């Protein structure tokens, strides 16, 4: 055997090995590859068997107690026009466990139909469509709310030669999204969302009008670019058949001109905003009441004619009476803000997104507070069943 032939053989094997590895590890943007798909299927089958065994051994599962939500879990159309207020929460145990949601729920004696998760754009495995997490939420009988954050810098140029270099990427990044430069990623999500099939919310590029916090803000993009990007993404999802996605447009109402970022009635199902009272912990903040943060903007939010979601509700403890804060918020919602159709507690333990120190938004650990919230939810009629 000639040396040249031998070397060629070794090279051929190495290359075919590399191709097989790449193909099978789902790095191509066309599909996830047969092996991952097969394993995913095996995993799902094992999970469902486990569920059935557990249901038999452990008494009625939570899904049973959420049966009343079934019409909404089965129909995106119903979710776009709900006739009562859907409660929900994000919990810092996510994405590893939903136990925190269930613990909060039993603390508040109020079922939580919505579970919020955060997902950033990018190449990493945990930045792909979170099908396991959404399936788990669905398995518990709730409906997922995915806050989907276009962090464009988490893509590798090596894998995607079509996108701008990393340090130039954020500048007018949403225009690039609108041009379709990120369709490799958007389409993969759209296909996976269609395959998931069950209705769920997507809160895309929230707080787009805040110039300080996220790279998709007005410091990098015009509002026209924002709207174009939004419409492009929604169109891609619709084209992929992902009509089960309910689109949540979520500006930061603390800044002016937020209403100019509205992508249009045909592209938005819900209008949302966060209502977080940081108290006096930072220079830019003071103790604000619920009505100061939300009440003053409500009319404009409701004027779009869409159901309104309070996507992040919370108050820190320092600087005021947070028991009263929650009581005011929860009792005023059904009375004064009838367009509000969803309230999600921001139940994060070590939140560091906008402050340098870690802050604690949790309710479950404070028994006086959780008792007050429980009582307000009941008296206001927000807690169902």
């Amino acid at each position, binding site marked *: 055997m000639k040396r040249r032939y031998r070397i060629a053989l070794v090279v051929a094997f190495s290359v075919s090995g590399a191709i097989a*590895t790449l193909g099978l590890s789902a790095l191509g943007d066309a599909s996830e590859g047969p092996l991952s798909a097969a394993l995913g299927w095996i995993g799902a089958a094992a999970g469902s068997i486990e569920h059935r065994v*557990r249901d038999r051994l452990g008494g009625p599962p939570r899904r049973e107690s959420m049966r009343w939500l079934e019409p909404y879990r089965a129909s995106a159309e119903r979710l776009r026009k709900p006739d009562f207020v859907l409660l929900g929460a994000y919990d810092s145990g996510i994405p590893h466990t939903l*136990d925190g949601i*269930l613990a909060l729920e039993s603390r508040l004696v109020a079922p939580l139909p919505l579970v919020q998760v955060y997902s950033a754009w990018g190449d990493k495995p945990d930045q792909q469509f979170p099908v396991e997490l959404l399936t*788990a939420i669905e398995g518990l009988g709730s409906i997922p709310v995915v806050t989907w954050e276009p962090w464009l810098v988490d893509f590798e140029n090596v894998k995607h030669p079509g996108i701008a270099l990393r340090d130039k990427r954020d500048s007018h990044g949403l225009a690039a999204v609108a041009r379709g430069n990120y369709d490799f990623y958007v389409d993969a999500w759209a296909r996976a969302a269609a395959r998931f099939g069950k209705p769920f919310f997507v809160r895309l590029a929230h707080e787009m009008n805040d110039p300080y916090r996220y790279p998709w803000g007005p410091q990098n993009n015009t509002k026209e670019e924002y709207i174009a990007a939004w419409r492009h993404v929604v169109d891609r999802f619709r084209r992929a058949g992902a009509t089960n996605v309910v689109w949540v447009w979520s500006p930061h109402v603390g800044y002016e001109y937020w209403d100019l970022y509205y992508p249009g009635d045909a592209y938005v199902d819900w209008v949302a905003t966060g209502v977080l009272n940081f108290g006096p912990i930072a220079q830019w903040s003071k103790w604000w009441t619920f009505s100061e943060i939300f009440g003053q903007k409500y009319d404009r939010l409701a004027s779009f004619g869409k159901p309104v979601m309070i996507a992040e509700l919370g108050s820190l403890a320092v600087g005021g009476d947070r028991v009263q804060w929650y009581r005011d918020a929860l009792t005023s919602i059904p009375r004064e803000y009838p367009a509000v159709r969803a309230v999600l507690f921001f139940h994060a333990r070590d939140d560091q997104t906008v402050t340098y120190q870690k802050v604690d938004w949790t309710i479950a650990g404070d028994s006086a507070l959780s008792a007050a919230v429980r009582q307000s939810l009941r008296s206001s009629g927000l807690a169902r069943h």
Partner: protein
Amino acid sequence: MLFVLLSLAFWYAVSRIVLGWVNYAALAKPDHRAPPPGLSVAIFTTSTPGEPLAMFDRTLDACRRIRYPHTTYLLDDTRDPRFSQLADRHGAVRLELVDVPGAKAGKINRALAATTEEFILVLDPDHVPFPEFFDRVLGHFDDERVGFVQVSQAYYNQRRSFTAAGAAEQTYAFYGPGQMGLFGHGACVAIGANCTFRRAALESIKGHGIGLAEDLVTAIRIHAAGWKSVYVPEVVSRGLVPEDLGSFYRQQLKWARGVYEVAFSELPGLGRRLAWRQRLSYLAIGTYYLFGVTTPLFLAIPYLYLWFGVQPAVLPFAEFITVVTPVGLLGALIYLVVQRWMCDRTTERGLHWRGLALKIACWPVFLAGTLLAIVRANVPYIPTAKEAVRGRFVRLAWPQLVLIALYLATLARVLSVRAFHTAEGSLELSAEAVWGMVAFATVPVLASFGALFAAWESRHPPATAPWDAIEVATIGGPAE
């Protein structure tokens, strides 16, 4: 800490694969050279007390039938007159060499001093050489720089038990493409069983090396002294492979301990006098038995997670499988492709799952060899048993039994925890990690059934001696 250990184990595994490819890339086969007449040639074979006479009858008979003129010497310390009679009957010269230190190698060196032949075949007494043995070998000594010529090693008893089949399977690739690659790198390994040396080469290194891996030492020293070597990938003799698990483990322990000794004491000193390709090859051989250190680490991963929640690296099981499967398939494919260079393709080709099962089962033995080498504990030199030794099942199989017991206990724990304790909100999100780890723990348990069967079979070794069934006149194929 755990992560670092695991990374090292992982990179060790990767380096083995790559070293295998490096070796295969150099694959070479020498052209046949007919020997000139008139060379002076000797065969040295050794006998020690307790070795079966009937086996020597076959061996000495076969030596007599080797066509190229030679003298057969029986290096004997049995003090048994029957061995002397046997030597006479087959025209062999008996050298009485009692109380010589250094076991087999010591006797060889003593015999070297007592003889004058220029070329010496060191033949293990369980090996039955074929009549054409020297015709295939001696021609390569035409090149004055060739110090030894090694031929393939093959067996005549590999079908007699699971252990024998597995042990034989483990060696096929080495004696085919493995040694051919080493030859290409100029780093053949001399095998004590059937290696032919040039007297001058042995004398230049002050005689045959001594120790548990005396053949490997000898090969390295001869290369370091500037000699070349030739590997002839042909079956021109057949010998014995261990038939019972206990003998196999003892053989593996001896080799592991011996090979480490070479890596620790010979390579650092002689390394400078070897070419880098030779150094790399011998380093690869010297670190083979580290398998015994890395395997328990891999074995422990699922148990650490399932009992203590400790995870050295977060890698979802599905992702692990998708990354590892192509590598595994490619490795298997390469293994199958290089089988075309096996020495006796009709009997040696195959998937060799018995060999793999026995290798996995050997990790405690390799680990023991590693630890013994580190503390420089002595392992006595005993020739590998020629006849199967009856073994007690539990004594041979306890590592596998412990593993299976641990596995079943873990499975019971996982099932009860997930049925009754895992909170509803975590059940689904932890399913992949937990069941993936269970699957990861299942593979070695399945593999351990091979060793369990081997141990079970070793309770009742074959009743007949392996050489009873062979016919010296025909073992090398029909006479020409």
